[in-house]
């Protein structure tokens, strides 16, 4: 806090008002009713137990912290980056809601986090599965909470995401952006961790019988981006997401009706209604593989389509081999 805000309290703790917001109040605003003001007991606060010791003090800290957060939300006193990424909202609300799912429902085990650099740009490339993109959220949470540098994962999404109401708004605030070269290069040049799921809707919407079989990798645009920005590619293999919603069929007329890429049928959806949206509690393993370095290639090699295809294949193979290895290692889908 700037020192200036302390001044009104300095003398006798009279009912001084203060403005924390950077927006000064115009004169037309009705002054807050002094009756609303509850006198803080500064005598007790400054002489009593310092906050932060004891269970009660800890609870008080959490309460005060959340009230502070809510006040800043309501008055607009927060910062987003140029992409619309709202780091505090993401950490507290989105990832906060996902933490119990990560820890208790899917019991995610994040391996190989040391392969992700502590700073600087890198491209995270992973397999995509599970009908609803939980795998993306879990990867974001693994990197944010369990990587020593608490890195934010900035994902690239299809334009469909950004034109869908609520989903588009939510994706922007969580730090994600449109899958296009300018955005990917800008993020990587700024030293951000960028996540791509090259299988796209083909990956998450594939039938259960094709589980853990990587789909086609689009046009390999991500390899060109990595080559141009000379950032490493980190192949990531995610095991467990396939079993959350075993996709048994796709009702195409309903997908067309709701303007969705697919309308899945699982053993419990849509039969159980909203209950069918609860994912099955499979045990997850997210393995971050050895980085594939791109800085050894000559500048301009992004224009060599053969090299781009080869690298794309190398990344794909690496993810696929790791998937098969992890699958043979796991004893059960559920534990």
């Amino acid at each position, binding site marked *: 806090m700037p020192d200036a805000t302390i001044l009104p309290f300095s003398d006798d703790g009279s009912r001084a008002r203060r403005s924390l917001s*950077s*927006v000064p109040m115009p004169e037309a605003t009705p002054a807050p009713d002094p009756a609303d003001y509850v006198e803080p007991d500064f005598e007790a606060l400054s002489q009593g137990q310092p906050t932060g010791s004891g269970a009660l003090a800890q609870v008080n800290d959490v309460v005060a912290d959340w*009230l502070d957060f809510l*006040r800043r939300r309501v008055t607009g006193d927060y910062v987003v980056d140029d992409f*619309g990424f709202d780091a505090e909202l993401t950490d507290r609300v989105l990832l906060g809601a996902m933490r119990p799912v990560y820890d208790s429902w899917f019991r995610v085990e994040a391996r190989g986090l040391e392969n992700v650099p502590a700073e600087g740009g890198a491209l995270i490339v992973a397999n995509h599965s599970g009908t609803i993109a939980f795998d993306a959220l879990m990867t974001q949470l693994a990197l944010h909470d369990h990587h020593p540098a608490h890195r934010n994962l900035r994902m690239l999404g299809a*334009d469909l995401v950004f034109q*869908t109401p*609520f989903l588009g*708004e939510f994706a922007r605030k969580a730090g994600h952006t449109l899958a296009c070269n*300018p955005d990917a290069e800008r993020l990587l040049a700024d030293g951000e961790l960028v996540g791509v799921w090259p299988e796209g809707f083909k990956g998450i919407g594939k039938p259960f019988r094709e589980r853990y079989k990587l789909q086609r990798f689009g046009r390999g645009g991500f390899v060109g981006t990595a080559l141009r920005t000379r950032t490493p590619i980190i192949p990531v293999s995610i095991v467990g997401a396939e079993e959350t919603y075993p996709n048994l069929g796709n009702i195409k007329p309903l997908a067309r009706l709701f303007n969705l890429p697919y309308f899945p049928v699982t053993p419990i959806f849509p039969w159980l209604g909203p209950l069918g949206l609860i994912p099955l509690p499979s045990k997850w393993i997210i393995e971050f593989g050895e980085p594939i370095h791109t800085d050894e290639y000559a500048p301009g090699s992004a224009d060599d389509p053969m090299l781009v295809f080869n690298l794309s294949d190398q990344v794909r193979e690496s993810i696929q081999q790791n998937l098969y290895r992890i699958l043979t290692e796991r004893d059960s889908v559920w534990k």
Partner: protein
Amino acid sequence: MSRVVLVTGVSRHLGSRMARILSYDPQISRVIGVDVVPPREDIGGVEFIRADIRNPVISKVLSSTGADTVVHMGVISTPVQAGGRAAMKEINVMGTMQLLAACQRAESVRHLVVKSTASIYGSGPKDPAMFTEDTQPRSLPQSGWAKDSVEVESYVRAFARRRPDVGVTTLRFANFLGPKADTPMSAYFALPIVPTVLGHDARLQFIHEDDGLEVIRLATVDGHVGTFNVAGDGVLMLSQAIRLAGKASIAVPGPMVGLVGGWVRQSGISDFSAEQIRFLTYGRVLDTTRLHERLGFTPRFTTAEAFADFVQHRGLHYAISAERVESIERGLARALGTATKVEAQIASTLRVADHA
């Protein structure tokens, strides 16, 4: 060399302020302001010539004054200002064509500065997160001011081809805000209840009018040539801006947005064109690297500061004041038997001071 500068669109606030600022510059001996109607504000030492840039009289003005620099600020942004969409298009597009035709004939003209707008990029879900000056727009604007501006810029490019000896500066501004400028966004935030699009939150950028005019001055006096994005640093979300202004808002579901926009438009309070609705849905952010590096200019006001200054000077009606929210926070903290975070921090500062 003493210079003669001709400024169009001086009847409105930004144009007349610009003309006045240029008239104080020691390198400029004469500033000629041109518009259809006389300026409402005092323009100091600026010579006003009442001329319509929509007819060839402007050519005579150029040749008789021997102007070497033309600053074109005669493009207007809302039909409210022009008295109808047809008149607005006439002023914007036909006016620019006539002005450029006159410039092409005038041997004396060496430099043309055009105040354009970032709305020529359009806004949509398929656009990259930030527009550079070279970004190809994915969704060209289909209506209103933005469409006029696309046409204006294309005529300016054609002019630049025909008169390669004339330096052309195109400045693409984010939305102007400030104590006095009347823009579509200032009218929007002045609505009693601000309508937004349900399920979308646009990223917005603003340029403070002082900074905007300083960029035009810099380009005019120093003769920087090229196309530049101009915006305050940083981004505000639409929802955040509404909260900073303490305004009440209402989220309108997508299919009904056009209808509500029509009501607002008909009431004459604010122009709510289809283009502006798209802007308020998807937003738009400019990459201003070129402004910082080639023009060497950093706006004094960030986007958030420009907005704060606008809110303060306009005295927008607060539905929820920051003070009210703070007192609610304190009340809740008391009810839960604790102090607010700010109070706790102050208390610990006092403790440190006591020990010292």
